[in-house]
């Protein structure tokens, strides 16, 4: 059963020549052969969205994608998001709002969000929810993620006053206490 395939993958803008067991998924090859462990896995069955990467700009569950079919396609992972040592606006907003708690779903969320913003630079909260609905998060209750994507979209649009509402950072004003 030991069949191996050799392929050239274009990952985060660079060509990588890899040899891998033919039946291995993109998830496995990214993590094991490419050393890109930023992409996570929660089920390996297409159920959780944790392993989301972009293939030709589209979000794909890497646990269901056969690496052997990836030759010539452009693959983007969380490691390719930042610009040098500068965080992508999505990354910065996720970090600042605690949209990454344990951070395990985060790489998948970030990639799915990136695909959304590429299509729609001013998504509504409902559109964000729909775009990310295939990605499970057990920590955050999702709100901080939606707020982070909204913030990042504002930053990407160059809005000077983009930023979370006071309530997002401090909680709602307690009724009867003024402020």
């Amino acid at each position, binding site marked *: 059963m030991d069949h191996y395939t050799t392929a050239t993958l274009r990952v985060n803008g660079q060509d990588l020549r890899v040899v891998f067991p033919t039946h291995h998924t993109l998830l496995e090859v990214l993590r094991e052969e490419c050393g890109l462990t*930023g992409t996570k896995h929660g089920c390996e069955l297409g159920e959780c969205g944790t392993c989301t990467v972009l293939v030709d700009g589209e979000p794909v569950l890497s646990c269901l994608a056969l690496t052997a079919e990836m030759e010539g396609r452009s693959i983007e992972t969380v490691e390719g998001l930042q610009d040098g040592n500068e965080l992508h606006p999505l990354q910065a907003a996720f970090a600042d709002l605690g949209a990454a708690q344990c951070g395990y779903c985060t790489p998948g969320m970030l990639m799915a969000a990136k695909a959304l913003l590429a299509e729609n630079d001013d998504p509504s909260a409902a559109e964000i929810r729909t775009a990310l609905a295939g990605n499970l998060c057990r920590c955050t209750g999702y709100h901080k993620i939606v707020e982070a994507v909204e913030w990042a979209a504002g930053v990407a649009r160059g809005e000077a006053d983009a930023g979370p509402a006071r309530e997002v950072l401090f909680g709602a004003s307690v009724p009867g206490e003024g402020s």
Partner: protein
Amino acid sequence: MTPPRSGQVIAPDQAPPASAPGSTQEDDLRVVGTPFRRVDGWAKVTGQTRFADDLTFPRMVHMRLVRSTLPHAFIRGIDTSKAEEMPGVVGVLTGKDMPEPFGVLPVSQDEHALCLEKVRFVGDPVVAVAALTEDQAADACSAVTIEYEPLATISSVDEAIETSEPLIHDYGDEGNLHKKISLQFGAVDDGFAQADEIFEDVMFYEGSTHLPMEQHAAVAVPEGGGRITLYTSTQTPHYVHKVLATVLGMPASRVRVIACSVGGGFGGKSDIFSHEIVAAKMALVTGRPVKICLNREEVFYCHRGRHPVLMHLRTGFTKDGAMVAQHLKTALDGGAYGSYGVASTYYTGALQTVTYGLPRYRFDSIRAFTNKPPCGPKRGHATVQPRFALEVHLDKAAQRLGIDPADLRLNNLLPPDSITANYLKVGTIGLGACIQAVVDGSGWRERFQSLPHGRGLGLACGSYLTGAGLPIHWNHLPQSAVQLKLDRMGTVAAYCGEAEIGQGSDSVLAACVAEVLGIGLDDVLLCVGDTGLTPVDLGSYSSRVTLMVGRAAIQAAERARDRLAEAVAEKLDVPADRLVFAESRVFDSGNPENGMPFAEAVQRAEEKFGALATTGSYAPPRAPGRYRGSGVGPSPTYSYSASVIEVEVDPETGLYRVEHVWIAHDIGRAINPVLTIGQVEGSVYMGLGEAMMEEQVFRRLPKNRSNALVHKVPSMLEYKSPTFHEMPPVTTYLIEDPDPEGPFGAKEVGQGPLLPIMPALANAIFDAVGVRIDQVPIGPHMIRKAVEDKAAGGDGRYGPKAFPDIDFGVPLMVPTPDEGGDGRATNSEEAGVRKGSGTMADGVRKDSKP
């Protein structure tokens, strides 16, 4: 984009009381109270955070486990010969390679790294195989044959009560009952006799699992000098360390456990797991690093999640809604092993007294062994189930007594600085303010009972520990410790055994140090969760970290500040008590120009004292209870939460949607408000999951197959949990009233806000369509059935009918403080201490000492 680091303090004019640890008179908090970027945030958004499965080592091999396919059976033979011959295989282990029993609690040493003579649930690990690749290990596992002799399966509490043979374990209080408790605080019968009304309810809370996104993983690395290092996704590296040394038969000084960043814990990674021990053993046997990452199905088998609990609650009320006596009975389905179960059993009764006045209280409980994955602690531990029962019970009482449910609670709040009937010492209580906030925020006064049919509001409250008062291994040692190393370049390294599981414990540690020393968060370097390098912290459970690590950090930092101040005072010729540490400088408060950079202050102190390192530690105050069982429930302080939920129900179909959640949490002080809100929202989410859909349930395979009791849904697709679409809008109120025990006044937030959610939903459904669903999760079919029942003249209730008839014997009688009690039981001789008492036959093991 600049991080919101400079956000203003939420209540700038509200200085903490001088007694709150870490605060000073002229307190002007700069870090604490601001929504700063979490210190591990950068790594988490770049993919740099290394979880256990992200690690690789030279010569590393991969391990898989062969797990039982039967729920209850003797192992009659294991044949690994074929597997050993398979390509790439480097090692095979069975139970006899690690015969030493273990368990997280000293009283429940009932597990083996691999099963010895018996398997006790489908998924119990029997054989381990290591090979060069994971594929090879998996192939070799399929070549292992195990011969079983099946035993009758115990699938429920009822079956456990009825079936004393076969025994799942050869210890326990009675037959297949692991633990049996009966406690009576005060003259309960007299209390009932004084009641104007007595109400009774039977309720059921289904089991659920943590479902962390990260599957458990561990890598064991053999090191020189006969040492072993285990990298693992754990919330409790200290406990893993102890058990590993015991089972491997090695001096603890040669065993090192490093808690990797945990990809979601929620209690599910606070036990010691078979795969951790076996990986270490395999590494020692093969001389190679060994990795194992469980698949999702195996994560469901590890479990240690929410116990299914059946509850019977009987309470006497006065006409105006005050409770005069209560009798709570709980029955826990424990699964196949002890785990934290004895503590869980006590927790189903312990915190019933900390929210509202309850002068007399009786609590009876059993925990049954069943042939299912073991239950243990999940967010809120076992206080969640009885809280659901109590808050729904109170809602019904309010309705019957004609009192608004908010008023019933507000009128009967436990006063601050109380000692409860079961001897819990409660300090600050922000519950009244929490109720007020959600009542006002939701428009409760105008809208409750006034919304159109199908729309409803429900209110409920909760409380949780800010750290368990007693350690698992009984001792008087600190429960948390921090060491600081001050570097002449101005870096402060903080060492602490705490485990970051996503809750933000690293950020709390860094913030406390930075605040006291007046330096930036980025000047604090952390080394955490490493039993070889860091002082012991007991781990991330019982919501203990913010308070205990925070207090230890403040003590260590204050000691460092004192040393620096002494040296700087000499240098600047000003009294030490006039020095201010802020903005990475140390200066004279009377003349801010007269000062020096922090790094120079360290140099002056190093000249004077030599190399600089300080320590700090924390041990909780002693609790007043002296009876057997009083160790479960005490805490340095309790957090409080209140929630109002608005729901829209279609009475025809029973389908419902949560429209809005208002929640207020008594946080004492938010160390970092944005992370605090994240914990609240995460708790609301997880509570809604349990209230609406999550269930860890089992089914039997057909008779013509094995008839085995198997997990119904060991996959993420089938185990339903809320997605973005099910999460309603949440309005969060942080109630800040600094607590004298908490660091800068902070209480816990990771677990408490979950507690009011399930009962608030059930109560909201009643307001919407007038039916009572006395169990969770609440399925649409339950609502529909109850609506139909009500239309047919029934009581419009869906839920369990009866609590099993159990002889709890003579309760342990503990007179309450009001009755002049001293915290001791008056009849320890005749009650409470049964044969075995849920413990191993040989009692507390010798290794229960630290």
